């Protein structure tokens, strides 16, 4: 799973797709996940890192991450 090359991502987690003109903003966690996706981390690695840093149920987070990445694919943010 990779963020498309042309997608611009600001430090605050604001995404801009120059091919469609669409822009999106995410919350803090979304922004962290996107940063990790940009570093080519796998969903497993992302889950590990988030679960280490936050008090969150692993299963619940995996489900949320699935939903989030599906949304990113839908919006052509992910390849």
């Amino acid at each position, binding site marked *: 799973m990779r963020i498309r090359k*042309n997608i*611009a991502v600001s430090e605050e987690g604001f995404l*801009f797709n*120059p*091919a*469609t*003109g669409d822009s999106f903003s995410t919350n803090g966690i979304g922004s962290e996940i996107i940063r990790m996706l940009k570093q080519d981390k796998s969903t497993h690695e992302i889950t590990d890192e988030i679960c280490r840093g936050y008090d969150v149920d692993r299963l619940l987070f995996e489900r949320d991450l699935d939903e989030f990445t599906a949304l990113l694919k839908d919006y052509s943010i992910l390849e």
Partner: protein
Amino acid sequence: MKRKLVIAVTALNAIDSPGPGVAVIRAIRECDDFESRIIGLSYEALEPGLYMHDLVDKTYQIPYPSGGTESLLTRLQYIHEQENLDLIIPGFDAEMFNFIKLRDKLWQLGISTFLPELNQFEARDKIKLFDFGQKHGFLVPQDKILYELRELKKMADNMEFPIVVKGKFYDAVIAYSYDQAEKAFHKTMAKWGLPIILQEFIKGTEINIAALGDGEGKAISIIPMRKLYITDKGKAWAGITIEDDKLVELARKFIEATKWRGGCELEVMLTDDGKPYIMEVNPRFPAWIYLTAAAGQNQPASLVKMAMGEKVEPFNEYEVGKIFIRYAWDLITNIKEFQMISGNGEL
């Protein structure tokens, strides 16, 4: 010392469904390569552009396009005697035919234009668009040209909805039933006359492309824009420059195939599976043309240079993510100015 050019511009109706005139002037004014005196050419006394004195130096009323070329030429000759015009940039679809017809006569008077040939202009006409697409290999929605209501009635049983009902110059209505189609037919006919164009509805994202051709097949500038906010008349109230090689290539191919001279706007519907359908080709700059200057490709200024015989190299970069947001502004004037333009035809 910079050359001072006297440039006449039409389409000063900066209203909710605006003409490109004010945006064209704004872009020209920003170019440092030449100085300009701007002459507004107006049809109506309440076109806002003629009261914008920081943009327009002097305005003259001209006869409506329905008056034909003779009355227009007579009026332009008078204006030329007063102003010594170097160039005219028309901006309304409905007036283009007359200006193209007058091109040689204007040239003889010493007035330049930078307009498409009549055959180029007519080939992209709404009523010939499908054939045009077929000929050059562009995706264009299927259409049917209707010259009387009886033809629409005949089609009633086989029509698929939604369908788009379009006027020959402006306006498009999406009809979801036969009744709506017939109502739209009458309304559009009353406003723009016949024929009426019935066009296949294409679902997708609306993209507009402003392009400038040199008349020899080369695209000098191409800027694709996605509408971010659309008015109830379907006009962009906000838009953003986007990066899509497919769209740029489509416009380049269009300019190359038609050897288009001057500015034009391609209205494109990009389907969800990425197919770009050309919905319409407007034979002039769009109202959002200032965005091209803001994004780094000043199309109106480049047109001026080419019209003056200068060779202009094609742009190859523009800023993606540049946004325009149109706004309404109550311009205040006084009755004296209104009287001058409506009584004397000059301001």
